[in-house]
């Protein structure tokens, strides 16, 4: 399954400063969800300090997850079933002023 992953607000620092990457998840019998995507990201992409991105089976507090520019809370959250060509944006909240 072909997806675009984006990182912003500093989250990209955990991914070699890459703000955008396209990935291909192996097709398997069960569908991919954000939950399983996070596991895949942890195992395949996270170069640094996983606890700065993931907490438990979700993202750590302060990271907002968007699917096609929509808050995952409006979709199924961790259980959202990914679709071909979905765009998943992980944006870390900024606090500076």
């Amino acid at each position: 399954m072909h997806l675009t992953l984006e990182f912003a607000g500093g989250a990209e620092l955990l991914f070699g400063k890459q703000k955008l990457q396209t990935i291909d998840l192996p097709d398997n019998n069960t569908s991919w969800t954000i939950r399983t995507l996070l596991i895949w990201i942890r195992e395949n992409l996270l170069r640094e300090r996983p606890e700065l991105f993931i907490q438990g089976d979700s993202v750590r507090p302060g990271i907002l997850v968007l699917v096609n520019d929509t808050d995952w809370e409006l979709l199924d959250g961790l259980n959202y079933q990914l679709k071909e060509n979905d765009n998943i944006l992980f944006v870390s909240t900024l606090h500076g002023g």
Partner: protein
Amino acid sequence: MTKHIRNHSLSNDEVQRYSRQLILSEFGVHAQERLKDSSALIIGCGGLGSPAALYLASSGLGRLGLVDHDNVDISNLHRQIIHRETTIGKTKVESAQITCLQINSSLKIDTYNQLLTYENIMPIVKQYDVILDCTDNVITRYLINDACVLCQKPLVSASVIRLEGQLSVWNYIEKNGPCYRCLYPQAPPEETVSTCSDVGVLGPVCGTLGSLQALEAIKIVTKIGDVLSNRMLLVDGLSMNFRTIKLRNRQTTCAVCGTNPTIINQPSPPPMNQCSNDQPCRKNLL
């Protein structure tokens, strides 16, 4: 133009000064009058607060409140365009007030040269129609959010770092909008939070976001346009990528704005995370 409109409360000077807004069909005399009858509180007179204050001061707003406990430092001047070399060492609120009055000597300005606390914030916030969060740390952002929810005030919040910025309006009741805690019930781990003093920021990014905060505040009090509630604007100044994302509504489970709030009488610190080294982080960041 306004000669044809009877019973408006603008003086001749005001008609001249605001003529470019009065002739604006989306704005006009009535919006200008609403603005004149309104008040805004800017919390933080730094990178975001500078342009926000300058544009609100020049717009015809009736009363402007300025909060900051800091003094002007030379390292502010690369981006905090409301301050001057001659105000280095002065309190930021006094420095900001001076510049605002130079643009608009009849503007009513209240200054609060103080740290906001769980005890003092609500009596201040209550006095204004719209609040602008132009601060620079996590704890204060939760503090301001809670106060705005408890006092039923819309909160125009922006944040900037490096060349990025984020903007949203919290607690916009007209659209059942979320508050800050609706999105972030828990504070981020301290190690993931960067400040402008740590990693830097470029001035014009502050100018962009602060100007947009002023714009949203004006739209809120004059009731024109589509307020940026239930949405967040993400700005990347390096790539010039502007993106608007759709956000959740007010959350029934929210600790301060939900149906069974636990935060009722005054703001509360957010639930803190364990640091990644398994030590609790309870720093007083105010």
